[in-house]
């Protein structure tokens, strides 16, 4: 067992989740109320809209030591602000490919659509993202140290 594997065994990743106020945050709330189980690795940041989340924020999370990032908004067509998530979708599509291009593992940065009624889906996504990040091990590339 090498060190990474050993660490993965006992290590719980820290994942920053930017959830939009109107859908995904309510979805996370519902997951809790409905007692769906999911790993305790998510630190939730409530934002007005997935369109509010900038690349700066995602990279700031990684720089500060997050092992993974999840951004989640309303399903296309359901945005409280009509089109925020459509714009976000273009920006995230480009960003995700771009981060992969400079060598950031694809599964570090994740995006999802979760509505206010999808508590179960939220728990699924949280579990899935946690597993993916666990497989990668602790983030190293963009974590600032001194």
């Amino acid at each position, binding site marked *: 067992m090498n060190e990474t594997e050993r660490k993965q065994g006992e290590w719980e990743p820290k994942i920053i989740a930017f959830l939009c106020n109107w859908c995904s945050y309510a979805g996370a709330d519902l997951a809790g109320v409905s007692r769906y189980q999911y790993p305790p690795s998510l630190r939730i940041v409530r934002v007005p809209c997935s369109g509010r989340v900038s*690349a700066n924020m995602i990279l*700031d999370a990684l720089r500060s030591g997050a092992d993974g990032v999840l951004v989640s908004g309303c399903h296309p067509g359901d945005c409280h602000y009509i089109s925020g998530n459509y714009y976000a979708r273009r920006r995230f599509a*480009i960003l995700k*490919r771009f981060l992969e291009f400079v060598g950031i593992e694809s599964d570090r940065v994740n*995006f999802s659509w979760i509505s206010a009624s999808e508590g179960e889906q939220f728990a699924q996504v949280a579990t899935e993202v946690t597993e993916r990040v666990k497989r990668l091990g602790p983030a190293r590339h963009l974590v600032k140290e001194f």
Partner: protein
Amino acid sequence: MSTMNEKITEELRQKARQLLESGRVAAFLGYASGSVPMVMRPFVARTPEDADRLEWNSFCVLNLANYLPALLKSFEPPRRPNEPPPQGPLPKVGVVATGCWSRNMVVQIQENQVERERLVIIGISSRGMVDRKKVQALIAHRDVTAVKEGDNTLVVAGPGFEEEINRWDVVRDNCKSCVHPDPVIFDDMIGELKGERDLPDRFSQVEEIEALSAQERWKWFTSEIQSCIRCYACRNACPLCYCPTCFVDDSRPQWVGKSIDSVDTAIFHILRAYHCAGRCTDCGSCESACPMGIRMRILTKKLQKDVLQLYGIEAGMSVQEPLPLTTYKKDDPQDFILTESLKGEKK
């Protein structure tokens, strides 16, 4: 017999002189020759006599659109931040533009940084500009004291040597992979429009990197930016970078540290490039300005490739067409969205 560039220079001076003499423009933005070989000086001609200092050759590497927002503003009466712009026509500025420069002017028009009516654009179809770093590499980094340009050759001279090199061999990578040499907006042209170039492998530099593993890509990226001194020449040479406060200078919150820490430098380069997504015309100003030889242009080229592939748009081709990241389609690709790809897996 005069070379192509000498003819262009002559015509450029003449047109600029006329514009300045007639009072149609308050200033003309072009290039004057520099004090060291292979570096040109961006130059604002303010009098008809100044026009005779204008020069055109293969070393005009810095995108002149970069100067336009501030230059235009300098001809407006001073006003407070929230005061509306003055009524009536404002002084105009003349500027020379190749394909990519004119496309950056289009982007600036779309982003309300410059007004089309205030520009008098003299178009020149680009033959590609020369990368002086390539020239220096070819002559083993010896001290260059003079460079003489022919139509297809450069004669490079220094203490104890004189070598003739093929111009195209040392043309910048972005120019070699450019398909739009013609200006897309102009009021007057010098020379003919050349038409689009057909280059199926224009993204080959990007594809080479894409073919690597994630680990190798990270290694490439970090070693490429390792020598960065954070002078921001890449940012300041870029016509897209006009924000009054750059994210680098934000203090609340501070997105990125300011010394040459490797993580901060990496984040700076990622975000700088990303902010150009859907707006960059691959003019190569950033790379040409970099004193450390960092090839950060590959980053923006990658963004250009993805934007074109996903949304079918190239920045600055038309004032009417919205910039790709300021618009959307309901059926934009979304296979990268986890909940969508999980759906796919279930099926």
